């Protein structure tokens, strides 16, 4: 069995899906210019000590990457409703290769989204050292692991008719509570935010722009969410493939 061959075709069909690319890559870009461009002169956004173009570049890179990875759940649900997963069960495809193909595709989309936001940020005057770009990207990729688990979980739990609202709602809620749209600085909301993977994804995106990265709490929260969503995703996958009368 050629695992690489299978993953390559999965990637190829994602790249061929123009609407997916347009929405997945275009949306964060459009939002970024709509929000950051009118505020490009704001040097200290909401007491965060960060300029508006930097703040929203990080926020929308987070939002775009989250969207890109969670979108895998929508594609899984669509393939399930097509009966494609039932067909795959009659081939020697193993679960590892199946997940690998889904994750490589999701991460590829996330990386392109992040890269495009960087370019857009640079266009609005964001200037960072090479080390900063690399550090924030690396930490974000780690911070996306819980979202990959969440995508597989939702994809195997929810039907294709409900997966849109399920993923849209999850993304909106996590983005809002994680501080994508405005800084969450204190109170109960901050305490909730700190327990969410989206908050730490936002922190990861600030590493290059004066952020401190992840505290011990951050690593623990991300690790816990990664393990939790991976276990739940595995259970949902097994339940789904074992289901009778599929």
């Amino acid at each position, binding site marked *: 069995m050629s695992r690489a061959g299978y993953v390559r075709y999965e990637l190829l069909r994602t790249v*061929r899906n123009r609407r997916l690319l347009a929405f997945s890559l275009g949306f964060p870009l459009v939002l970024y210019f709509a929000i950051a461009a009118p505020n490009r002169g704001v040097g200290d956004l909401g007491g965060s000590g960060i300029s508006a173009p930097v703040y929203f570049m990080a926020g929308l890179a987070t939002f775009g990457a989250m969207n890109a990875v969670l979108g895998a759940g929508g594609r899984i649900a669509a393939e399930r409703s097509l009966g494609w997963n039932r067909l795959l069960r009659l*081939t*020697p495809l193993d679960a590892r290769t199946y997940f690998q193909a889904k994750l490589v595709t999701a991460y590829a989309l996330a990386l392109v989204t992040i890269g495009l936001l960087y370019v857009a940020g640079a266009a609005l005057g964001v200037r960072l050292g090479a080390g900063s770009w690399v550090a924030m990207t690396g930490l974000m990729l780690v911070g996306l692991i819980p979202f990959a688990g969440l995508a597989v979980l939702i994809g195997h739990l929810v039907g294709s008719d409900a997966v849109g609202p399920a993923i849209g709602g999850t993304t909106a809620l996590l983005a809002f509570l994680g501080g994508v749209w405005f800084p969450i600085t204190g109170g109960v909301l901050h305490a909730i935010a700190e327990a969410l993977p989206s908050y730490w994804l936002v922190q990861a995106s600030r590493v290059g722009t004066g952020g401190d990265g992840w505290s011990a709490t951050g690593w623990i929260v991300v690790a816990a969410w990664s393990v939790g969503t991976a276990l739940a995703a595995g259970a949902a996958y097994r339940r789904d493939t074992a289901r009778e009368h599929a």
Partner: protein
Amino acid sequence: MDADERPPGVLLRGLRKAYPSPAGPIEAVRDLDLAIEIGETVALLGPNGAGKSTTLDLLLGLQQPDAGTARVLALEPRVAVAAGRVGAMLQTGGLLRDLTVAELLAMIASLYPAPRAVGETLALTGLEDLAHRRTQKLSGGQAQRVRLAVALVGDPELLVLDEPTVGMDVEARREFWATVRALAAAGRTILFATHYLQEADAFADRVVLLAHGRVVADGSPSEVKSRVGLRTIRATLPGVPGVRLEALAGVTRAERRGDTIELSCTDSDAAIRALLAELPAARDIEITGAVLEEAFLHLTSEDAPERVA
């Protein structure tokens, strides 16, 4: 190993499977035994609800039996599938979009240890002209051929086809069976479920008839037909009601098409004597052996579906 001791291609022993329903569990498969030798082409027949799809699901490992065992090429079904030794074409299921036909086949081929070349698979299924077409732009019949190609590209030893020609036109059906015949000639074991009885009659070495989750007949198409012992009497006979015809000795069923009557007979000798004695106006009389459809109706209508207490 002696040739006679080869493991069977498919071996089902005492297979049982029930589904819950509000009125109590319904047994889809009840104590089913079936052995298929390597290289055989077998048709699985039966009315809706006879247990055909459940039987195929059990032998493909898509469902687990409540009791009994299923072995494919002497292996657990899931193991045989994981080893790439089984290919299947199911009744439902779309094709993955955004790939060409050739790319989709290459994607599936990449999962098998020793796949058939994509080009060869395309030629075998008559898809060369469509190799570079995206899967979402195929007609229903074309998509059906691609589904067969997907089942064949792994070069499996056992091929399972569930109602493979549904939705195909006459020409597509002819080409489809030509492909399957070539595979059978190459020594592949083929099991297909169908409700087109003439396909079973024409293409299967062996016919297995299911009713109410059990095998009710098993043999070559001519054996199954003769086992039933049905013959048909046709005659021109206007104006006689069907009830009267069905009351004739040896007749099980009477049908009228215009002035022509058709009598299904368990004892055609008694029936023809009775017909000529009671209705001498009958003319243009023909007596023929049963077609598979009559055997099918006769064998599957004997007992009503039962529920488990």
